Every structure is written in C-alpha cells, then in structure tokens.
C-alpha cells in the first residue's frame, strides 16, 4: 500500500514537529519568569504549551496531506500572481483609479477620523517606500539606515520651525535639503563598498544618528524630544478654533463650522501630494540618463564602468535624492505629530520601509503601495491585540517572501526596449 506508507511518513513528520515545537515552546512559553518581591520566580504554563504543540502537530499533518494531493494549494502565490497579471494588463487604469479614489477618500461616508489617521500613516510609509525605492529598487543599493534621513528631516524641520518660527512651506524644502546633504555626507565615503558591507554601514549610520539624537541634549533635548512644533497652515490660514491676534483661521475664512477634521483632511492631502510628487519624480527620472544609469548599475556594475558610467557619482545621486525624499517625509511627520523624539526613528522603521520596498517587488511603484497597505493594514487589524501585532507583521514578511520571493508585483519590465529595431 503506497498511500498508507505516505501517511505513515506524514505522521512521523508530524510527531517530530511536535517534539521540536515542545523544545521551542517548552522553556520560553511554558516557564514564565516573573518578579515577585525580590528576585525572579518561574511559573509553569503547561496548558498553553500543550495547545501550541498540538497546533503544530495538526498543522504539519495538514500540510503533509496537502502535499499528497496532485495540485497543491498555494493561496498567497495564487492571489499575488493574479494581482500582478492584472496589473500588467491594466496597470495604468488601476493607477489612475487609485489616485482618484485617494482624492475623494476623505469625503466618503465611512471615512472617520481613525480611518483617515491610518490612511495618513499608510501614505507616509508609501512616500518613504517610494523614496527608498530610488535607492534600493532602482540603484540596487541596500540601505538599512534610511530612517536616519527621515530623522534628519524631522529634526531639522522641528528645530528650524521652533527656533525661527518660519512657516511650513519654507521649512519643508530646508528639511529635505538637510537630509539630502546628510545622504551625500554618508554616501561619499561608503558608496564604494559593495552589497552587504554597504548594508551594515548604513545600519550603523542609522544607529549613530539615533544615538546622537538621544545624547545631544543642548540641541535635540535628548530622549524627551522637541515639543510644540508649529502645525502647518493652509497658505497662512491656521487650523485653530480661536486664532491668535492678527491671524485668520481656516473655518472663518471659508465660512465653515469649526471642526478638528479640517486639519486632518488637510494633512491627508498634504501627504498625498508629497507622495505623488515623489512618484512623479521617480517615474520621470527613470527615463533620464541618470535614471537609466541607476538601473544599469543595479544590473551590472562592471559593464557600466566599461561604458564610462561613474559608479560612485551615479550611486551618490540616487542616495542623495532618496535621502531628500526621506527628509520631506520626516518634515511631514514632525508637523503632523507636533512632536519628535528619537523613539520614532529606531531600526525597526528602516526595516519596515525596506520590507515595503522588497515585498512590493523591487522597483515597482504600485507594488510599494500594495505592500504598504498590506503591512500597515495588518498591524491595524491586530490593533486590539496590541502584543501580537508585531508578531503578525514579522510573520507576514516571512510568509510573503516564502511564497513570493520576488515581491507582490514581481514582473519588472525594462524601462526601454529596442522594439522598433528588432523584428
């Protein structure tokens, strides 16, 4: 009997999985340490371990049965292939519909303050993803410290705005410039490094920036952060119920009933415009010589050198432009929160942004949008289970990579082909 032999191996595998999961969960979950009075005590939690081990055995058994069938069920793979096929055919329409939807979104009936807040967060990540996409997706440089530029943007905005009291529209370009300058500063020495060496150096740089922010009390106010960052105004019209002397507020100018939603909606459009500018810029620059050089460099550095492309300068432009957009996003973050502290710029933020770019399918602009909605969405779905949201987040990263290693929208088309000449 062939089938029963196969069933036997599945059962054997499942029991082995059970043994391993017992070893995994036994000590960490089963023996919880907690402090009572002085010192630590161990409290056993047997039932949870039994449940987890049983779940592992059953799960492994079902996976084994699934692999016996002629056609395996690969749900995530199927869904993402469908999406990416559809996007290939109707990409342009989907993009336009998406933008139109984003424009009317704040006025839809189900849009309340919470939904809008989450959307603003997702759009911030989309913008960061698009900014990093220039560095990682187009130029092929793995940057694990992108949050450093986000932080530089946020802090320079905060410092300029609180010290000089300049308006948002003056501070925003300055914050971008500062971040871009930092990009050049870091990029200059390190961009001749290759692959993973570059990754660890950028990670180190991200940590250096964070540590300096924590410790440089005189300027950054240390771990307490900077408070009282001015909110953005609508071309000089403040979003305040009772505007200060000499100021006109938004609702009186337009004869509206005062509502806190005005500012939220304004912030929403602000980040939408910023993100779309990033996207437009990327799409355009891909068609310019420097954009082509990035993509060529990503594919083959030696060939580029032979053709007279200067790799360091080309990478430096990518790095600086990516950093500038990171800085813009940082400035937006600062003005939205009205508060910045080093806590917001930990390595996990860099990891999330890199994950959005890679999960979206490197170099794909629409992929970034889908990945950002999916990843940030999943943490919001698990919002009530505060403790488990990051587990779900990390698990989603692993699962997408396993089933779709090239990202959600994997089909990367060359920007230019010789279609007229090859017949």
């Amino acid at each position, binding site marked *: 009997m062939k089938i029963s032999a196969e069933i036997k191996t599945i059962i054997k595998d499942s029991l082995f999985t059970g043994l*391993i999961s017992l*070893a*995994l969960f*036994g*000590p*960490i*979950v089963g*023996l*919880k*340490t*907690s*402090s009572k009075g002085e*010192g*630590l*005590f*161990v409290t056993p939690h047997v039932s949870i371990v039994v449940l987890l081990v049983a779940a592992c055995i059953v799960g492994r058994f079902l996976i084994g049965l699934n692999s016996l069938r002629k056609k395996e069920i690969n749900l995530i793979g199927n869904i993402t292939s469908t999406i990416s096929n559809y996007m290939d055919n109707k990409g342009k329409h989907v993009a336009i519909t998406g933008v139109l939807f984003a424009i009317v979104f704040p006025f839809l009936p189900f849009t309340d303050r919470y939904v809008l807040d989450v959307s603003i967060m997702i759009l911030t990540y989309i913008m960061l993803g698009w900014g990093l996409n220039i560095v*990682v997706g187009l130029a092929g440089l*793995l940057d694990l410290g992108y949050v450093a530029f986000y932080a530089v943007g946020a802090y320079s905005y905060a410092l300029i705005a609180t010290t000089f009291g300049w308006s948002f529209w003056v501070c925003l370009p300055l914050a971008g410039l500062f971040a871009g300058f930092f990009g050049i500063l870091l990029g200059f*020495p*390190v961009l*001749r490094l*290759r*692959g*993973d*060496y570059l*990754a*660890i*150096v950028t*990670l*180190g*740089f991200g*940590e*250096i920036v964070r*540590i*300096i922010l*924590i*410790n440089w009390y005189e300027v950054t106010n240390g771990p307490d952060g900077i408070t009282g960052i001015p909110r953005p105004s609508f071309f000089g019209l403040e979003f305040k119920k009772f505007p200060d002397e000499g100021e006109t507020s938004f609702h009186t100018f337009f004869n509206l009933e005062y509502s806190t939603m005005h500012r939220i909606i304004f912030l929403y459009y602000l980040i939408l415009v910023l993100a779309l500018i990033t996207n437009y810029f990327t799409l355009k620059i891909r068609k310019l010589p420097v954009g082509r050089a990035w993509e060529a460099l990503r594919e083959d550095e*030696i*060939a580029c050198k032979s053709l007279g492309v200067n790799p360091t300068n080309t990478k430096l432009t990518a790095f600086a432009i990516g950093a500038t957009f990171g800085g813009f996003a940082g400035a937006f973050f600062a003005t939205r929160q009205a508060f910045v502290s080093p806590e917001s710029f930990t*390595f*996990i933020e860099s*990891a999330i942004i*890199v*994950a959005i770019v*890679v*999960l979206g399918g*490197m170099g794909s602009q629409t992929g970034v949008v889908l990945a950002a909605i999916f990843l940030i969405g999943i943490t919001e779905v698990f919002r009530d289970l505060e*403790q488990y949201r*990051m*587990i779900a*987040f*990390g*698990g*989603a*990263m*692993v699962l997408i*990579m*396993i089933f779709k*290693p*090239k990202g959600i929208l994997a089909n990367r088309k060359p920007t230019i082909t010789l279609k007229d000449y090859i017949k």
Partner: protein
Amino acid sequence: MEYFIQQLINGITLGSIYGLIAIGYTMVYGIIGMINFAHGDIFMIGAFIALIAFLLFGLTGIALPIVLFLVLLISMLFTACYGWSVEKLAYKPLRGSFRLAPLISALGMSIVLQNYVQVAQGARVKPLQPLISGGLEFFKESDFVVTLSYLQIFIVFLTIVLMSMFTLLITKTDLGRAQRACEQDRTMTSLLGINVDRTISITFILGSSLASVAGMMFVLYYGVIDFYIGFLAGVKAFTAAVLGGIGSLPGAMLGGLLIGLIETMWSGYISIEYKDVAAFSVLIITLIFFPTGFLGKPDIEKV
C-alpha cells in the same frame, strides 16, 4: 596605567561575548551568503533559556560548577532547536532566490522572535543575582585596584576552550571539510555526494549553540536581560564579523575583541553615552581602507 589594564580586562571579556556571536554570523554568511538578522535574537533566546535554567537549578541546591555545566548544555540544546527551526522555516525555502529575499525573511523572523519572547516572558527586565562572585586583585598599593573577577576568568577561559574546539572541528573533521566545501561551491559539493542541506542545518545549529553560550555569559556578566538585548548585541557582533572580514572565523574572533576593546576604552576614557557611535564609526573608517575587513578574502569581480 592601572585604569588602562582594568579597561583591557573588561574589553577582552566583552569582546569574547561579541566574538562568540560573530562566529554565527560569519559562518552563515560564508556558507549561504546572507546576513542572518535573526541571529542576535537567537542569542537573546539563549540568554533567556539560560536564565530560566539558572532559576530552576537555583531551587535544587546543586554545586555551582555542575549547575554551570548543566545550564550550558541545556541552553545550547534548546537554542540550537531555535536556530535549526528558523533556518528550516524562513531560509530554506528561499535558497537560490534573489539576494534580498532571505534578508527580508530574516528581518521578519527577528521581529517575530523578539515579540514572541516579549509576549511569552513579559516586557520587563529580568534580573539575576550574581552567581560567581569574588576575584583577584592587583596593584593593591596604588590608587586604583585592578580586579580580575572569577567570572571574567570563566568567560574568557570558556571562550578559548570553545574556540579551540571549534577551530579543530572546522579544520580537522569531515564535517568541517564539508562546510568549507559548501562555502566554496555548493553545486559541486552536492555533486560530490555531500548533503548540502544537512551541512547548512548543522552550521545553523553550531552558530546558535555558540550564540547561546554568549547569551549565558551575558546573563552572568550583566545580571539583567530583556527581550531587546538581541538587537544591539547582534548588530555589534555583525559589525565585529565585518570588521574582521566576513566569512573568516579568526576574523570574527579578532573583530569581536576589537569591538569589545573599542567600546570599553571609549566609555572609559571619552564618553559612555557615545560608546556605540565609536564602534560603528570605527567600522565605517575601517571599511574605507580595508573594504573586506582585516582578514577577509579580497572580492574578485568577474564579468
């Protein structure tokens, strides 16, 4: 002078811990060419298992050397299970796919492990009262008494023993030969009848066991751990591996010692707040002049 010797001793102790973690990074990088971001969290899990084992044995009243030995074995065994499972679940399906996929998977795994321990064990710091106390004192006549604690002797001694065993394993045994062969050319190695998957699994098991020893040392040395220790220790150990030349075992140990010394010297003489900045700055400066670390093989670019 006395102060310098004290910092030297502390630096070597810290460097031993970093070196042991760095070996896991460098081996995995050598064999499958990926940054195993979850390795720092494997170290953290090793520390937690060691802590739990210490607490359990603390109730039984067995003599200290036996407890140390048993805890060492237990944390190595259980942590190795974690290393093995992480490889099987998150990295093995991605073998042969493009370069960034395993890296993202590893980042995800690292987030999962960190938060899993936070959920299971709680977010608060876990203290452990010192088990090995006392030490040797030098320069008793001078102003500054240099102390070499028994714990530091234990850590450095254990590191030397493990490192020698490990070097023997890699250079003399069949397993080590298979591992070095996989590092050079995986396809050819499998053609020659070596089970590559098994060799990679064993690499992960060995790396995690060494990380768990480092975890146990960390618990004993600092006496307090939480679920977040894996990140910084992991990043610094990876920095050590890169500094020494990634893929090179003696390089990992050298890098570990250097990072440990830089950190203690910097915090001893310049400023304690910026000790992490020092480690990363040294890395950046080193890589500008030695693009593949101190003992790394130069990268040959081929068309």
